[in-house]
């Protein structure tokens, strides 16, 4: 079986394969034993044989209890092993570096904290724990890298995570393994594992603009600045210092302007209308992607920071 397996390219892969091989040996032995006994009985007690058949109908309670209890104990042992490995697979180390993944029909959009973006590919350094924080823009997808023995569904409206530490340089297939529509089979890509130095060079080379700058560009491109800009004639809320502040709403309640609020204000503006403003903002649902929202939030966050510093300077 070892030759059949995909390459072991993460710290977890070896442990997973060991468990697999042990289980294969156990279940294989039992299966072969049962087959051998079955064939032996079939030959020895075939209709025309003259084998001894005295006391054929005895039921032996001891035998029954034995083959109930022994598999049970074996299964409990396997469960214990599996669950301890599994809790390791599901719990990222505290120092794992985050990378963000947005899935949509039918592509993977990857966003590094430094602003580097990739589509259908992921570059990671060797030997460093990586934590992927993932969400989906439409249906359920699943991030699957066979070489890492890791897999996690990517859900809309929620974040899920997956972690690994790559141990071997090379390119490994990245697959979507939750059925997601027409081009499900084409929602594939590559994970490239690089030496830390190469990775640093790669980050440098692809260091486009930071996330906040991308957001600023989008702020203009999507026409946000047309209403929310300082020279605008439209009566729309000023967004300086918005992030983290408390916003009074039209229905009298108040809400903290966190990521969720900003995202909803862009995608579902009618949901929470700020007090004193007409509900005239159009919804951007379907017009811009989750990754765009991400950039816009980063941009608004940065405007929050700049106003803070400006205030301090006064």
């Amino acid at each position: 079986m070892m030759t059949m397996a995909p390459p072991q390219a993460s710290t977890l892969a070896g442990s997973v394969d060991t468990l697999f091989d042990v289980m294969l040996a156990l279940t294989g032995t039992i299966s072969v034993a049962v087959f051998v006994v079955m064939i032996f009985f079939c030959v020895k007690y075939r209709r025309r044989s003259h084998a001894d058949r005295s006391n054929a109908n005895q039921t032996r309670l001891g035998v029954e209890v034995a083959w109930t209890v022994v598999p049970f104990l074996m299964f409990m042992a396997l469960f214990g092993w599996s669950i301890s490995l599994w809790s390791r697979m599901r719990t990222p180390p505290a120092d794992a570096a985050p990378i963000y993944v947005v899935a949509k029909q039918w592509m993977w959009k990857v966003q590094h904290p430094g602003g580097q973006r990739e589509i259908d590919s992921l570059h990671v350094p060797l030997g460093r724990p990586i934590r992927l924080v993932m969400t989906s823009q439409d249906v359920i997808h699943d991030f699957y890298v066979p070489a890492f023995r890791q897999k996690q569904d990517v859900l809309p409206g929620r974040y899920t995570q997956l972690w690994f530490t790559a141990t071997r340089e090379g390119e490994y297939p990245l697959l979507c393994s939750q059925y997601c529509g027409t081009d499900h089979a084409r929602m594939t890509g590559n994970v490239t594992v690089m030496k830390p130095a190469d990775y640093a060079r790669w980050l440098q080379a692809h260091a486009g603009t930071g996330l906040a700058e991308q957001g600023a560009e989008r702020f203009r491109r999507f026409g946000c600045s047309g209403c929310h800009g300082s020279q605008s004639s439209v009566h729309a809320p000023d967004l300086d210092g918005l992030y983290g502040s408390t916003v009074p709403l039209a229905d009298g309640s108040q809400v903290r302007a966190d990521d969720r609020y900003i995202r909803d204000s862009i995608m579902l503006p009618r949901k929470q209308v700020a007090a004193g403003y007409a509900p005239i903002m159009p919804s951007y649902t379907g017009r811009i992607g989750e990754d765009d929202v991400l950039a816009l939030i980063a941009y608004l966050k940065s405007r929050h920071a700049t106003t803070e510093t400006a205030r301090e300077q006064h």
Partner: protein
Amino acid sequence: MNSIESAVPPPRSYLDDGHSLRSWLFTHDHKRIAILYALAITFFFFLGGFAAMLIRLELITPAGDLLTADAYNKAFTFHGVVMVWFFLIPSIPATLGNFLLPMMIGARDMAFPRLNLFSWYLYMIGGLFTLAMLVLGGVDTGWTFYTPFSTMFSNGHVMLTVVGVFVVGFSSILTGINFIVTTHSMRAPGMTWMRLPLFVWAMYAVALVMVLATPVLAMTLSLIALERIFGVGIFDPALGGDPVLFQHFFWFYSHPAVYIMVLPAMGVVSELITAGARKRIFGYRFMVWAIVGISVVGFLVWGHHMFVAGQSMYASMVFSILSFIIAVPSAIKVFNWTATLYKGRIDFNAPMLYALGFVGLFMLGGMTGIFLAATALDVSLHDTYFVVAHFHYIMVGGSVMAYLGGIHFWWPKVTGRLYSQAWARFAAILMFFGFNLTFFPQYLLGYEGMPRRYHEYLPQFQVLNILSSAGASILAVSYLLPLVYLGWSLRHGPRAGPNPWRAKGLEWLTDSPPPTHNFEVTPVVNEGPYAYEDA
């Protein structure tokens, strides 16, 4: 019995009780209803099989060249929907169960014969919806209907499919109610619970699952339909709804549904092996409790379909340990079947070959199930061909082998004719090899990391896929063969006596084919099942 025959002419068999179409379509006779089911189910089996053929043809090459991506998605969805709800779930219960349950407990009919007929009509109506879906262009959600794809994104005929499955679900609920009540209140004098044949126990356990799980599916599918109509619903992530909640509801039905498919097979095989080995089943009480245990614990393991779906870690732990536990009764059954052969007088007739094939394939399928119950392994195996191979070993290697074995075993009882043993043995052996050639490579494919439901795949998977497709063509031939020789036996087969296998069980006491009310005199039972003393 012989003394009666000399006095009065033998009673008319149920087959001679009217030959008009009307006498069939309005019958209340459980045996005729069983035959109506058998015809419909065979039709759907070959329809679903045709879709499988398209899938295997497409997968011969890594590129998606035979079908478009959409056509491929529709093919596997249709294959799944038809095979699960229109073949596997009704297969053994609605045909063999309907025919045999009243006879095995010594009753004249089911408790509610009209309800029985009504559930066949529900099955047919559900089938018509599904055919309408196919004719109008199909559906591409997969048989699992995961939200939000099925509610917000799919352009297929989700509504028609959902309605079809909903209706056929009620057919299965009504069958379940009928089985439960029949087993409770129609048993012949002396037929105590611990004298019931294991097939009856299996039918009873299956009926429990049908009655308690199917309504959950029905309501869940209604929620999908409403969400599609109104554009809002509790699974909609945009409102804060939870798509994983759908998976909970779906698998609360669909995991027990797996036991709806395999418990009857276990019942059939228990009958076949005792008759073939001419020996009592080893450990009858353990077999009974294993059946009951599987049907109850089967309701507590559904979360093992959701280990990587965003379910809580703690919930996964609980579902994992329960999934390991449910493997124990299955293991007990395999060991007991094997032990039944010990000191038997084994006759390798066709039903016995099917039964032995079942035990082997079921064991391989069950063993790989343990890999999937282990959370750490399931992470990498989930949603790959490993899973596909695993459940086909249980469903196709297990249930279909047992279904065909049962058909071969009770064929003389149902039709009064014998078929060619040579051909039947050949078909059984061919099926065993064809099946393994088709699905064993899929274990390896999954282990290597090929995800399921892929229209195109990486080139390194091609060799195994070709093997699998080659196996599928052998399998297709072996499924067509019984149609020929069983059909031939209807006209030309020699007459079968009441008990051609010299088997035990009340159904073998009456004529073949049985009279309309099964027994001329209600039998009185005074011994346990499988009282083979001549071993």
